[in-house]
């Protein structure tokens, strides 16, 4: 389901005309996503799903309520407006309620690609056929998943704000296993246009890793020099970025809280090699032109040469702390080095290469301490060469340590993690010290 700017504006106008609250905000998310899944060398499930969700926020002074519905005939719009208004009337006054934003200026850019949003089932089936044929020919077992989608986001309110954006997206990931179940490899990425994604190359990488990871040897848990591939870095990066909230830091319940009060903004928190920012205009991982409430998005520097530069400020918290509002990151970009992962391996005397991480959960938010496992390809590096496969590990470690102890990086690339498959991330592979806490027999 794709809505043009005029169609979106018309739904918002009709909804605002029905509204009786002091102030009203209407947002629309229209999405069409098609997908195909294969496993065990055959297709399994597939789909093509359209939806349009209209959310109404009603404000009576400092009382507010929200309701959403996925139909936009007049009767449905009237129902959702009434529901939001009834909810708002019940709500107690919220001392933190902020007035709605008026008209805003947004960046004039769009990376939307109609061919990606509406690709036919045959284009997905052909990728699956290629992957399955290759796997059968080489005595391997293929599983994978691909999507292509188009999403329209629009927002309008009774103060004259109107925002509209369209994004297209293609995703592909695949896991190739050996028939005996003693080897497994993975590769995947996200892109904003189908023609930017080389699914065949990702199929080849996963198959190569499956074969390479056969007959893994054991290595005692402990702290090692480890090269984390971009997919593994992406997950650690995102868990770290989850902590960027200024209010939690000011309230003393965050890694970014300063002992005795305040935040660590301006303090060195990571290695001076680390620079992390958000940039919705970066064509490698474009983000929307507006964030919640209609706030325009722009480039934000989070970490510059290891120093914390900014945190996320809601409009209320920014007002209270006399700071500028800063929306949550719409993408995360980490500056890398110049070489490839192969170059990193070549320059490593003794280490471990990790393809990706899995099932990551917080152990302690205060130190951003996480637990999780390695998956789909762990290898021993000796004298600049991959020597043999290793069994998987559980890790108990924190991105703060990973990004403080890193000593080398590859160039940054668009990637996706296991816990961050929908988030737009560009990052390098990093070489660092990493702690494996126990062994896992899982393949």
């Amino acid at each position, binding site marked *: 389901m794709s809505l043009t700017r005029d169609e979106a504006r018309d739904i918002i106008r009709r909804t605002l005309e029905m509204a009786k609250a002091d102030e009203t905000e209407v947002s629309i998310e229209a999405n069409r996503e098609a997908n195909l899944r294969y496993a065990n060398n055959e297709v399994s499930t597939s789909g093509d799903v359209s939806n349009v969700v209209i959310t109404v926020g009603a404000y009576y002074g400092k009382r507010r309520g929200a309701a959403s*519905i996925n139909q936009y005939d007049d009767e449905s719009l009237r129902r959702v407006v009434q529901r939001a208004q009834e909810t708002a009337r019940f709500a*107690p006054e919220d001392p933190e309620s902020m007035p709605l934003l008026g008209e805003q200026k947004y960046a004039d850019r769009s990376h939307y690609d109609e061919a990606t949003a509406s690709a036919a089932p045959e284009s997905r089936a052909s990728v699956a056929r290629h992957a399955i044929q290759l796997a059968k020919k080489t005595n391997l077992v293929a599983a994978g*998943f691909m999507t292509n989608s188009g999403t329209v986001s629009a927002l309008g309110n009774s103060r004259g704000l109107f925002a509209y954006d369209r994004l297209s997206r293609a995703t592909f990931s695949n896991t190739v296993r050996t028939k005996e179940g003693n080897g497994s490899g993975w590769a995947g990425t996200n892109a904003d246009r189908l023609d930017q994604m080389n699914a065949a190359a990702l199929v080849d990488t996963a198959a190569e890793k499956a074969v390479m990871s056969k007959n893994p040897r054991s290595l005692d848990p402990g702290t090692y020099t480890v090269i984390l591939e971009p997919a593994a870095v992406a997950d650690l990066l995102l868990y770290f970025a989850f902590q960027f909230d200024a209010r939690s830091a000011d309230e003393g319940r965050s890694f970014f809280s300063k002992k005795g009060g305040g935040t660590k903004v301006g303090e060195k928190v990571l290695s001076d090699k680390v620079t992390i920012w958000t940039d919705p205009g970066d064509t490698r991982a474009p983000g929307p032109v507006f964030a919640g409430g209609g706030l325009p998005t722009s480039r934000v520097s989070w970490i510059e040469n290891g120093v914390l530069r900014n945190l996320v400020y809601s409009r209320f918290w920014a007002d209270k702390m006399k700071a500028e509002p800063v929306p949550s990151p719409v993408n995360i970009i980490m500056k890398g080095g110049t070489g490839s992962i192969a170059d990193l391996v070549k320059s490593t005397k003794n280490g471990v290469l990790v393809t990706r991480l899995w099932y990551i959960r917080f152990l302690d938010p205060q130190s951003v301490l996480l637990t999780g496992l390695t998956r789909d390809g762990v290898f021993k590096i000796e004298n600049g060469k991959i020597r043999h496969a290793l069994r998987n590990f559980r890790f*108990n470690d924190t991105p703060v340590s990973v990004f403080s102890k890193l000593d080398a990086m590859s160039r940054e690339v668009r990637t996706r993690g296991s816990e961050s498959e929908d988030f737009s991330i560009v990052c390098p592979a990093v070489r660092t010290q990493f702690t494996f806490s126990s062994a896992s027999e*899982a393949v």
Partner: protein
Amino acid sequence: MQDRELLMRALETAKQKGASYADIRLNRYLRQSINTREKRVTNISNSESFGFGIRVLVDGTWGFAASQNVTAAEIDRVAAQAVAIARANRAAQGKPVVLAPVKAYRDTWQTPVMKDPFRVPTQNKIDLLLAINAAALKVKGAAFCTSNMNFVKEEKQFASTEGSEIEQVIIRQAPSFTVTAVDRQAGKFKTRNSLAEPIGAGYEWTESYPWVAEAEKAAEQAVQKLSAKSVEPGKYDLILAPSNLWLTIHESVGHPTELDRALGYEANYAGTSFLTTDKLGKFKFGSDIVNFFADRTQPQALATCGYDDDGVPTHEWDLIRNGVFVDYQTTRDQAAWIGQKESHACSYGDSWGSVPFQRMPNVSLRPGKEKLTLDELIADTKRGILGEGRSSYSIDQQRYNFQFSAQLFYEIRDGKIAGLVEDAAYQAITPEFWNSCDRICSEGYTLGGSFYDGKGEPGQVNAVSHGCAAARFRNVNIINTARTM
């Protein structure tokens, strides 16, 4: 056009376009979410989602398409699209899909509730949430309290070309709170979540739960956690209360007994399973006293319903009997994979727009046969740790290596609770852990559960409960996770 006419039109169109089997789900989902912190209501939202999904088999290949636009013309378009997708995928199909037989049912089913949460005034819910926060914040040292309630109502209509027409109304709720204690000078903070679990019940359940008393106790415990001693790592006898054990059951028993995982159909996402089909009927999963059953029929359990999304009536069966792995969770298109004639009714799609596939039923540990209470079990333990409440949880993609924490860990010395310990987690290998289970209480069977069990691509959530009484595990590895930055 009436709903029934639309359902029949979808089935007829799919057949005309070449489907050998088709079903349609025309579903409406109502959701309410109320969030508060301290004295504020931070969010109240109500959502309604309505639409249909059509699933077809063409030459033994599945196709699925869905839309929120519930009109006759869109039904025609989507039915044709589902058939076109199946045709496009046919060339990449291995063995054709075979559906286990099921009778045609014309029936209705509803979660038994006394008070429909969607008819309870929002004000009552807000009053309760703010009372929880106030009770917590009365405790010295408790700095913050957030609380929330989530309610879901699924109104589902199912029809298939095999003649079933089934209507169901399913109600679930997930109330919860978190108290945070902060020591600003030391730069430390600790949290304690509610031990209450999501449940498939009416609002009368929420009204009967002792929220205010638990909030006060939780706040006291959050403050105590700031100064609790760090656990001495090593081997301990571990007792897990139902509020913690349910999640360990979910991860280490529920997921590995999913047949699609065991056969590789989740290899690219959730993972596979160490319980491969060659182990069926033979593998010693746990000690002799360990018995797990699956069902979608237990009252108040989250996965409970009358029929699954294949139109199969729900029932109870054993997964682990006297410690031996004896069966899987299955759907109609999976039963034949292991030579079974009937599905165990585990098909579920989390929305009208989500393709139904195998999802976890309620998986529960049968209470012990010898009479035993938790207090008696503690008294019987010389050097142990007692865990209560879910916290951090992580397990590998074949479900061997897990590491779980708890909201509260108590040290047990000479049969008595010796106080709280912090920074603990238990780490084990699934079959070793369940084989170390030496006593299961006969008293105190309680349901825990999750609203958000994730699986599949595109990702879908499933709500599922796990019943158990407290149990003891011998010589479990307790690690210390503390890390100073």
